[in-house]
C-alpha cells in the first residue's frame, strides 16, 4: 500500500485496472440481483458452465474434497463437509431452494395454526429408509425427540428449544409440533441439520456406533467410510423420487490441497472439487476440460470487537477500525474481484436489503486516524488475535497495514484454527477476524451473534432495540412483513459497529465440463444428488 501511494505512476495504472475489473464484476452481480427481486443474483453465474441438455444416467462421481468428516450422524455433526454427505444420503423434512425459499421434501406441505403455536407437517407417503424401515410420523417424532432429549447431548438441541415443546403423532403421515410461541425460523431449521431423518431401526441396532453406519431415506445409501480417506455411496433403488437421480454412485475422495484437486479434475480422476481460490481459477484459462462455477454467497468476513470491554467499549475505536478496513483491497487483491464489499450481516436471501449495499463506514484512513486521536488511543497497545487458517491470515495481514496507520499499536497473536472459535467464546480475544455462514432464515445467525441473551454473542453487543426487533421478527411468518424488520436491525447494528464487515466472498466451485445438473446454494453446501456425467 505504501508503495502505491509513493509511486502512483507505476503501480497506479495496474491498480486502476484491477479496480475496474473488480467493479465490473460487482456491477454484474447487482444487475443480476435486480433480476431476482430483492435477492442478489439467484442465477448461476459461471465462468465456464457445466453441460446443458438432457441428463445422462450412469457413472460414479468422484468428489475430491478436503473432507473433515468425523461422523455421519447429523445429531453430532459439526464439520462443514459432513453436510455434503448428508444431503446425498438423507432427506430433510423441508428443504430450501437456491434463494433460501422453503420447498417441500419429506413433508409435502405444512401448516401453521392461527396463533402460530402449532406447526403441522403432512408427510410424503410410501417413503422408506435404506434398511426398509417405513418413514412415517412415528419416525419423525422419534428423530425430533432424540434431538430434544437432554441426555442425547446433541449440539443441535439449541436450534429446536426453546420453541418446540413437544412433538405429536396425529396420524401415520401427520405430525404436529407444539410451540411455545410463533417461531418462523423453526421451519428453516428443519431444512438443515435438525431436519435430517435417520432410521430409528438402524439407530437402535448400532447404538453409539450409528455415526459410522448411517441409514437415511436419501437417493444414495452408505457403502463404506475410511476417515481421512474416502466415503463411498451407491444409488438407493427404493428412492421415492428416482426421476432426479442419475449417478450409480458417489465417492468422496480426501484431497486436502487445492492444486492437487485441480490436477485430478484435469486428468479426469475427479469431476468436482471443493478447494478453489480466485488465484488458482485464473490459472485455468485455456483449460477446456475444467470450469469454475461461481455465485454470490451470504458468507461474510468481519473484524469483531468486544463492545463491553476496553478498549473497544469506546465506540469511536470500533468506528475507526470500520473506517480503516480496506474492503476494496481485500476484494481485489485477495479475491480478484470474486467477492462483494460487505455492508452488514445479511448478504443474501429474502431479508437482504438491496438499498443497504454500501458500508456505513466507507474506507477513510483520515477519519480513522482522527477517531483514534479523539479517543486518546494513539500509540495504545491493542491485542489482535487471529486464526492460523490461511484465508484469515491473508485477510488480516492485508488489513493490518491500514490498522497500524490509524495510530493503534497492534500486538498480533495467532491461535490454531481449530481452537480459534473457542478462544473467541472464552472471551480471550477482544479483537479478531471472524467468518460466518448464513442460515436459510436470517434469525438463525443474527439471533446467535447479536441478541444480548445469546451464548454466541461473542462481542458482548447489547442493544435493547435490536433484541426487541429480533424477537418480534422471529414471530412473523409472512416474509414480506418480516423483511423490513431485518433491514431495520441491520442498520442499527451496522451503525453500532460491533463488527467491521469486510466482504461477502463468492462461492467458487471447480468441476469438469462434462458435469451436468450443478446447482449452487447460498449456504455453500454442495448438493450432489442430482448431478450427472455426460459421456
Amino acid at each position: 500500500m505504501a508503495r502505491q501511494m509513493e509511486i502512483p505512476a507505476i503501480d497506479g495504472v495496474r491498480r486502476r485496472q484491477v479496480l475496474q475489473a473488480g467493479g465490473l464484476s460487482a456491477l454484474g452481480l447487482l444487475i443480476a440481483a435486480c433480476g431476482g427481486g430483492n435477492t442478489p443474483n439467484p442465477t448461476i453465474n459461471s465462468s465456464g458452465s457445466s453441460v446443458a441438455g438432457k441428463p445422462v444416467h450412469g457413472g460414479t462421481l468422484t468428489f475430491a474434497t478436503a473432507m473433515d468428516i468425523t461422523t455421519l450422524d447429523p445429531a453430532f455433526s459439526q464439520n462443514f463437509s459432513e453436510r455434503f454427505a448428508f444431503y446425498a444420503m438423507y432427506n430433510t423434512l423441508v428443504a430450501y431452494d437456491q434463494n433460501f425459499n422453503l420447498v417441500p421434501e419429506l413433508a409435502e406441505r405444512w401448516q401453521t395454526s392461527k396463533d402460530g403455536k402449532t406447526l403441522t407437517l403432512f408427510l410424503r407417503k410410501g417413503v422408506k429408509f435404506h434398511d426398509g424401515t417405513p418413514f412415517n410420523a412415528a419416525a419423525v417424532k422419534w428423530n425430533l425427540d432424540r434431538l430434544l432429549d437432554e441426555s442425547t447431548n446433541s449440539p443441535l438441541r439449541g436450534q429446536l428449544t426453546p420453541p418446540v415443546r413437544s412433538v405429536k403423532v396425529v396420524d401415520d403421515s401427520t405430525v404436529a409440533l407444539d410451540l411455545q410461541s410463533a417461531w418462523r425460523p423453526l421451519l428453516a431449521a428443519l431444512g438443515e441439520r435438525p431436519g435430517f431423518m435417520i432410521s430409528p431401526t438402524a439407530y437402535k441396532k448400532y447404538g453409539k456406533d450409528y455415526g459410522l453406519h448411517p441409514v437415511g431415506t436419501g437417493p444414495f445409501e452408505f457403502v463404506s467410510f475410511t476417515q481421512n480417506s474416502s466415503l463411498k455411496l451407491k444409488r438407493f433403488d427404493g428412492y421415492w423420487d428416482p426421476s432426479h437421480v442419475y449417478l450409480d454412485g458417489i465417492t468422496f475422495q480426501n484431497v486436502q490441497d487445492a492444486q492437487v484437486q485441480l490436477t485430478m479434475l484435469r486428468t479426469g480422476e475427479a469431476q468436482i472439487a471443493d478447494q478453489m481460490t480466485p488465484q488458482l481459477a485464473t490459472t485455468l484459462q485455456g483449460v477446456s476440460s475444467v470450469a469454475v462455477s461461481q455465485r454470490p454467497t451470504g458468507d461474510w468476513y468481519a473484524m469483531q470487537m468486544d463492545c463491553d470491554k476496553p478498549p473497544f467499549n469506546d465506540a469511536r475505536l470500533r468506528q475507526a477500525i470500520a473506517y480503516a478496513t480496506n474492503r476494496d483491497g481485500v476484494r481485489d487483491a485477495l479475491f480478484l474481484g470474486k467477492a462483494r464489499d460487505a455492508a452488514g450481516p445479511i448478504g443474501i436471501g429474502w431479508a437482504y436489503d438491496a438499498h443497504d449495499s454500501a458500508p456505513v463506514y466507507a474506507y477513510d484512513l483520515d477519519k480513522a486516524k482522527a477517531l483514534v486521536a479523539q479517543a486518546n488511543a494513539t500509540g495504545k497497545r491493542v491485542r489482535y488475535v487471529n486464526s492460523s487458517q490461511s484465508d484469515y491470515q491473508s485477510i488480516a495481514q492485508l488489513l493490518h497495514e491500514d490498522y497500524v496507520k490509524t495510530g493503534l499499536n497492534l500486538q498480533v497473536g495467532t491461535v490454531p484454527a481449530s481452537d480459534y472459535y473457542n478462544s473467541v467464546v472464552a472471551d480471550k480475544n477482544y479483537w479478531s477476524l471472524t467468518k460466518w455462514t448464513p442460515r436459510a432464515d436470517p434469525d438463525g445467525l443474527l439471533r446467535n451473534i447479536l441478541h444480548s441473551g445469546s451464548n454466541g454473542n461473542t462481542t458482548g453487543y447489547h442493544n435493547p432495540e435490536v433484541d426487541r426487533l429480533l424477537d418480534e421478527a422471529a414471530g412473523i411468518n409472512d416474509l414480506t412483513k418480516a423483511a423490513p424488520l431485518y433491514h431495520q436491525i441491520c442498520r442499527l447494528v451496522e451503525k453500532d459497529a460491533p463488527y467491521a464487515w469486510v466482504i461477502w466472498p463468492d462461492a467458487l466451485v471447480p468441476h469438469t465440463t462434462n458435469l451436468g445438473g450443478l446447482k449452487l446454494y447460498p449456504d455453500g453446501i454442495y448438493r450432489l444428488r442430482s448431478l450427472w456425467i455426460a459421456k
Partner: protein
Amino acid sequence: MATLAQTRLTRSRTPVRPRVWSTVWAYPRLTVGIALLALLLVVTLGAPLFVSHGPLEQNLSAVLHLPFGNYLLGTDQLGRDVFSRTLYGGRLALAVAVVSTVIALIIGVALGLLSGYKAGMVDSVVMRVLDGVIVFPDLILALSITYAVGPSFWTVAAAIATVNVPKFARVVRGQVLSLREREFIASARVAGVSTIRILLRHLLPNVVEVIVVQAALTAGTAIFTAASLSFLGLGLPAPQPDWGGMLKDGYAYLGSRPLMSIIPGLMIFAAMLAFNLLGDGLRDRFDPKVIARTARVRAGRREKGATDEQ
C-alpha cells in the same frame, strides 16, 4: 575418550605449514559448514542491505508477481517480496534454533553432569524421566506442546528445547561416567572441593567438545522441527516471515508459482546442511583418531587398519 590433553597432544603432531590452510584442507566439512553458516548469517542479519522492499510491505497491485523485474523472486499472495521475506525469515529460523539449543544445552548439561557424577538414586530418577521424554518422537512431542500452550516464539523454542534436553544430558552423562573415576576428580573430591566446583571446574571443561558437537547438530534439527511446526500450521505466528510458514503458503500456489515454496525450502535445507556439516566437522576436529587418519590420508592416501569415527 577424547580429553583435551590428548587432543592437544595429537594436534601438535600435525604438520606445521600455514595453520589456517592446513585446517581448511584437513577438515573440509568443517570449512564448508562454517562458510555456509557465515553466508546465512550475513544475508539474514544484513538483510536490509540486500532488499529493496520490507518483508511485511504489501503491494496489492503486484500480488503473485513473477520473478525478476521489480521483485527478484516474485511476490506472494499479499504482494510481499519473496526475496525479502526469505532473508528476514532466516533471522527467525536462526533465532529459534539458537534459543532452543541454548535452553536445551543449559538444562541438559546440568542434568547430565549431575546425574553422571552423583550416580545412584539421582542418576536413576533423572535418567528414567529423560528416557520417558526421549521415546516421544521429536515432532509428536513438540507438536503437542505447541498446540496445547499456543504457538508463539517462546512456545516453539521451549517445545523444541524440551525435545532436545535428554540428548545433551545423555552425551554429557556418558562422558562424566567415565571421567568421575579418574584420578584428578578423585583427588579433588578427597581434597574437599565442593560438588558444584567439581562439576563446573573439573568436569565441564572436559565435556565441552561433545557439547559443542551436540549443539551444532541440535541446532540443525531445531531448524527442521520449527519449520515442520510452521508447515503443519502450528508454528511462529504471522505476519513475521518464517520459512516453514512461507513454504506452507507457497504450497497452495505450487502449480503456478513454484518458487514461492521452493525458495524457503532451499533455505531450510541450507541451514540444516550448515549445522550438520558444522557438527560433523567439529567432531572430526575434536576426535584424535580422525586427526591421525587425515594426517595419514594426506601422507599416503589410503591405508587400511585404523578404526573410523563412530
